[in-house]
């Protein structure tokens, strides 16, 4: 009745109530935010179906500890008010953890997560300082933050250039927004300790016009390596422009959001960007047992495997994100002895994650109460032939420097 009165105040319509049905017994709810229609739809249209597929797979195997997992998805359109509304809806439905989508959204939800004791994940985006579990108790980056990505990038380039960066020239081309400028402190610190030359090239939003910057890089500065930290449509533009100006793509490394098959397709396909290096926080390709299980699940229903799987970079990241949630729920159930876990239990569950590799799709994470990033692992894949070929195993770059920066910040 309480609810009905409230509804009448807003607008007539019973649909309000049906959507809010309280979570059933023996069911654990994970709220999922998604962007299938906004500026990051290139990721969302693949990431979110992967989340659903993995949950269906877990449920088809009987769920976790006798509980079915339910994921309720809302589309936040990469807007903060929509993210707040979606979060409040999931909270009311009784979610135990939240899959956040978007850097400003993660920032805006953080105070609420703390107040409501609901853990949320922001893999590969959000604030790098959130790796500090003491300062951000309910925010879990769970994948390499921009600081770890920058450190790993420099380490990769160092190995690539023969183990010494002294006197070498690096270019950093980045999308000119907070996420794009965030790695700068790490790069500057490494510039001093490693003794390389660094020049930065900002690409103003919306990031589709960078011919001047690329020309500057390729013709004037002529660096030994280019690090590209770009989002949305801009990675494909960067690849095309660098190629046109004659700079070898085998000396370019894209950060995690400049690294998917979709970007490569937009730049003209694998044939056009041979040699381009990509950074990944989840395994790439379809050769993982969990993906085969999902294919088998579809086959049993008489359906072909989902077409989203072809964009394996984002698909596998979706799997990684939700799989870590479910792993945290599993640990939380161990803690509660089978009773329905609360958000605080799942938070502790997240902090117990280790040795969970999902056949190599997930890095050797070790999430602890102080390190919510889990180590900041990445892999580098290179465009070779008509696919992405693994170049390195999971590795961390300058972990002590990253941790020092994390602790000094926030």
């Amino acid at each position: 009745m309480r609810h009905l009165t409230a509804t009448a105040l807003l607008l007539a319509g019973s649909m309000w109530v049906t959507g809010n049905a309280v979570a059933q017994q023996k069911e654990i709810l994970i709220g999922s935010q998604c962007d299938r229609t906004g500026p990051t739809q290139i990721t969302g249209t693949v990431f979110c179906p992967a989340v659903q597929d993995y949950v269906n797979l877990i449920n088809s195997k009987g769920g976790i500890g006798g509980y079915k997992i339910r994921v309720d998805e809302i589309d936040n359109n990469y807007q903060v008010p929509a993210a707040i509304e979606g979060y409040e809806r999931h909270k009311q439905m009784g979610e135990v953890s939240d899959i956040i989508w978007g850097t400003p959204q993660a920032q805006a939800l953080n105070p609420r997560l703390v107040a409501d004791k609901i853990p949320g994940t922001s893999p590969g985006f959000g604030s790098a300082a959130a790796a500090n579990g003491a300062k951000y108790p309910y925010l879990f980056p769970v994948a390499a933050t921009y600081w770890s990505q920058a450190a790993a990038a420099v380490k990769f380039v160092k190995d690539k250039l023969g183990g010494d960066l002294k006197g070498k020239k690096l270019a950093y081309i980045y999308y000119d927004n907070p996420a794009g400028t965030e790695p700068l402190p790490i790069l500057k610190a490494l510039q001093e300790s490693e003794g390389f030359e660094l020049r930065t090239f900002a690409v103003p939003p919306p990031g589709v016009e960078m011919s001047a910057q690329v020309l500057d890089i390729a013709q004037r500065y002529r660096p030994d390596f280019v690090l590209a930290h770009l989002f949305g449509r801009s990675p494909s533009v960067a690849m095309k422009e660098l190629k046109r100006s004659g700079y070898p793509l085998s000396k370019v490394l894209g950060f995690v959001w400049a690294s998917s098959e979709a970007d490569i397709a937009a730049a003209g396909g694998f044939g056009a960007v041979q040699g381009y290096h990509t950074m990944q926080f989840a395994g790439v390709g379809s050769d993982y047992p969990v993906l085969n299980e999902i294919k088998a699940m579809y086959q049993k229903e008489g359906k072909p495997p989902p077409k989203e799987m072809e964009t394996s970079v984002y698909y596998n990241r979706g799997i990684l994100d939700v799989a870590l949630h479910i792993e945290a729920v599993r640990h939380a159930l161990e803690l509660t002895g089978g009773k329905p876990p609360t958000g605080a239990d799942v938070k502790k569950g997240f902090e117990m994650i280790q040795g969970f590799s999902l056949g190599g799709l997930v890095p050797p994470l070790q999430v602890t109460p102080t390190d919510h990033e889990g180590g900041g692992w990445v892999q580098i894949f290179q465009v070779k032939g008509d696919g992405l070929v693994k170049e390195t195993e999971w590795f961390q770059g300058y972990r002590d420097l990253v941790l020092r920066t994390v602790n000094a910040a926030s």
Partner: protein
Amino acid sequence: MFYREAGVFKTSYAADMAMMPLPNTRWAAVALGVLFIGIAPAVCDEYTLSVLNLILIAVVGAIGLNILVGYTDQVSIGHGAFMSVGAYTAAHLITQLNAPFWIAVPAGGLMSAAIGTLVGIPSLRIKGLYLAIATLAAQLIIEWTINHVPWVSGGTQSTIQVGPPSVFGTPLTSAWQMYLFLMFFVILAMVGTQNLIRSRIGRAFIAIRDQDIAAEIIGINIFHYKLWAFAISSFYAGVTGVLYTYYLGIANYEQFQLDVSINFLAMVIIGGLGSTLGPVFGAIFVTLLPIVTRRVLESAGGLFFSASDLSAVIPSLRLAIFGGLIIFFLVVEPEGLNRLWRNIRNYFRLWPFSY
């Protein structure tokens, strides 16, 4: 039925100049006040309140933009940036000087008004689309400045965290407290605008809107009043930014980008230009429509799509329905939802003897 002017005799100047001259209006205002201040926060659950809070914040911004667009006929697509000016000003005051809300809110508004006045200067020489582009420049310049000046943005992430506002020493943490806090500013904004429009300044705004050359001829200093319009309107925008900051707990310019400016313009136009109630309707419409269409699709969509397709279809269909409904309402009533409401009211005024 709703309104009866007959039998209302005004015997003093005060009665004639009252904001609500008809007893019916006063009773309706009291009833709405009881409903939204007394009953709503008590019976609504937390989720409903959170949606109401988003609407309340949008109402303040839309009312402010309406002063500029609806009453003075000057376009601004820089209001998102003016909100961020207010948000960062307040965030710095709160975090560095521990300012209470009754300083932070007006300070954010005043800073935004100062910037808005500066941006309004070209309005003396250019109109319409040209002015729109000039204000677009302001939007981009302000975004760039916040992103690149660390002492404004507060660090590389351009995010400043603030705590909840305190009233008489009590931090407002729960949804209903926040609701009443925001409602206070909505009422202030509505009463303020209603009175502003009936004042010398408001009449000058309307004269400029209706025919600026004629207004100049009868002695209205156009430059002066256009800048006033920009100042007052961006003051509201700044306050909106501060309210967002308090509500979300952070100031971050990425939530005040160009699409926000356009969203607020949409609210004002859908609601009805040049009325106090129009932006309220517009803010409710624009905030609630995506939520309601999603609810409808979630409960009815199962008839047409399988569960797994549904989650992919809803976001896209929702946008299409949202756009379609905006076109529908503007075709039905080009003067906005407020006009629609007045038509309904006028119909029932004569009902059942309409002719």
